[in-house]
């Protein structure tokens, strides 16, 4: 087993201070957060954290449990890259003169699916979204033509197998939680347990 990229998705209440509470889960274990995004989710009033780390699965599993234990956290999931669809947004500022002069730049931008967001006399801002390798590649090809500024957002990800949080939230709102709410991992390992 080796370290790999995991995306942790955390559904939470939208409360002040929760970011710190979640962040300390990582810093306490000396784990570097590669990317962190907070946003609203599909369920009203529920916030969604998307956190990317490089770790062993065992570590991530325990971490997800510790996060889920926090009072204001409803649920924490973790997934490998092939279990999610993910995107990062990048912005590039380049000199407008360069683009106008050099036809090659225009072609490069088109090939990389870049869209112009702002066009001014002195500079133009392009955006792309995609995986890290794709946004990195455009940085590389633009470099010789004078990339003035570059920034990339945190990852946002959708879990392929997820049915969203609407139904889950209803269960959480029940005072007496239903059977479905139990996510005892041993459920998947019934055969192993019972044949031992």
């Amino acid at each position, binding site marked *: 087993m080796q370290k790999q990229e995991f995306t942790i998705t955390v559904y939470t*209440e939208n409360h002040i201070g929760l970011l710190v509470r979640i962040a*300390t889960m990582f810093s*306490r274990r000396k784990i570097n957060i590669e990317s962190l995004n907070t946003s609203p989710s599909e369920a009203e009033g529920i916030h969604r954290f998307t956190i990317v780390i490089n770790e062993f699965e065992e570590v991530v599993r*325990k971490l997800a449990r510790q996060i889920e*234990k926090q*009072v204001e956290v*409803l649920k924490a999931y973790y997934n490998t890259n092939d279990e999610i669809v993910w995107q990062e947004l990048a912005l590039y500022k380049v000199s407008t003169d360069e683009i106008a002069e050099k036809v090659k730049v225009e072609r490069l931008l088109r090939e990389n699916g870049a869209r112009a967001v702002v066009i001014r006399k002195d500079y133009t801002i392009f955006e792309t979204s995609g995986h890290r390798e794709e946004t990195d590649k455009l940085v590389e090809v633009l470099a010789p033509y004078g990339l003035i500024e570059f920034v990339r957002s945190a990852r946002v990800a959708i879990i392929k197998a997820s049915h969203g949080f609407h139904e889950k*939230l209803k269960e959480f709102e029940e005072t007496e939680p239903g059977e479905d709410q139990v996510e*005892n991992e041993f459920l998947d390992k019934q055969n192993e347990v019972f044949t031992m």
Partner: protein
Amino acid sequence: MMETLAVEQEPIVTKTQTLSGSQAVLEAFVAEGVDTIFGYPGGAIMPIYDALYDYHDKLKHILVRHEQGGIHAGQGYARTSGKCGVLFATSGPGATNLVTGLADAMIDSTPLVCITGQVYAHLLGTDAFQEIDVINITTPVTKWNYQVTDATEIPAVLAKAFYIAKSGRPGPVLIDITKNAQLQQFDYEGYQPCTHIRSYRPKPIIRKEYVAAAAELINKAEKPFIIFGQGVILGKAEKEFKAFVEKTGIPAAWTILGLSALATDHPLNVGMLGMHGNYGPNVLTNDCDVLIAVGMRFDDRVTGRLDKYAKQAKIIHLDIDPSEIDKNVKATVGVWGDCKETLPMLTKLVESKVYPHWVNRFREYQLEEEKEVIHEELNPSTDILTMGEVIRNLNELTDGNAVIVTDVGQHQMVACRYAKFNQSKSNVTSGGLGTMGFALPAAIGAKFGAPERTVVAIIGDGGIQMTIQELGTVMQSEVNIKVLILNNEFLGMVRQWQQLFHDKRYSFVDIASPDYVAVAKAYKIEGQKVSQREYLRDALTTMLNHNGSYLLEVMVGKENNVFPMVPQGCSVSEIRLK
């Protein structure tokens, strides 16, 4: 400015009752059945103290000498009463002084509600006098914390605080209330206790399949072994646990916080686990075929080297906190749930059995430990007093009915190894955090939590000097506690390690003591010092019979070691008897 604005903007309607935020805090306490508050006033919490002035018939307030003392007292109170400890501290240093106690309560799962004062909301973030970001400082050491800046939030926030502190796996909660919110008048509509928070599930749902799977493993076992922790006490499941042990006939050993959940003289109680635990339980952990862990968290001091811990055994782990299962030791069957509910389910499914040969193996190891360690510790052949014989005498005099509060170090290990307990919630110690200075204030709280019981604080000469100022609290509150100092003129546990693992290079462990009896006297507490065996028994009797608090200092052997011992990095079965 802000609070007057808030008041002015309120619509003039038929008011149920107008209260200040401070009064709402105290109303919440009364509604939650709080009877004792430990605290220390200061600028930012003055409105609450002002309101408290009118509540003195409903709420007893114990003025401590330091906020750390206050929070340890709150912990002691919670541990002996089974209720929630409550305390007040002011902003800034008052709040930061709570941090050690919060960390201690967090790791030992002690329910606490701490109220800290905070500067006016409009001063937040301005580096105002005694302003500190207490929420962020305490985030890693609280189960939950929250800052109130508007009094209308107070009833609901306090209801949530008590609910979170006490439910599920208990823990400390800190509520920081800005001064304007304490002063603010608002329409009070009564107190509603909290029973549900949608993002918080204190108790996982019990799945019968896993209880059944656990029972099947137990029924097939030939050498099963139960290890239990504080979960049994916190779950108030002592009776259920005893019934389970007795029906299955399985020997049971305890973690330091599980101590007293099962009477120490119970025939199936085989002793203490871990680094300074008993010989049999440690060695046989690596020999049993089914290990049943009840309400414990496999701390490294219990498991020793993890990759050599009970590898041969199937592990059943009962815990209310799902994140504990598989955290340190991989469970074969994890039974999620409150052991108050899971144990009876399990008891129903297990066969009634006895394991005479297996239980006898624990006895054999016990005999060897008696011969090599225990006999000499409890009945020394030299003139030098041992900690063990002090505890033996204390056992004989209290008959195992006292609450024993210990600090941290050698005396703690000796006291926990040898103290006799007949009833639960009798052992109060700082287990997870190992906080020196815990015992004296915790004993004060323990006595308020269990006023009818004898409370003996056993403390080393290091620990007592960390919170000795709480003798002032003892004096003023007139609490009746027995302070038993076991003085070996060293920071004994560190010295023991330096002797065993650092070539006897005694680096800064030689600690001088004041004249404790004189110090006590200055606080109007009677006491005496004993260094000879012939006076020990009488001195202990005097201490126990004294009407009021008493301090007894016993001079014990300087370089005695606590054995057995599982050296760090070794397997539990590599436990040394000398």
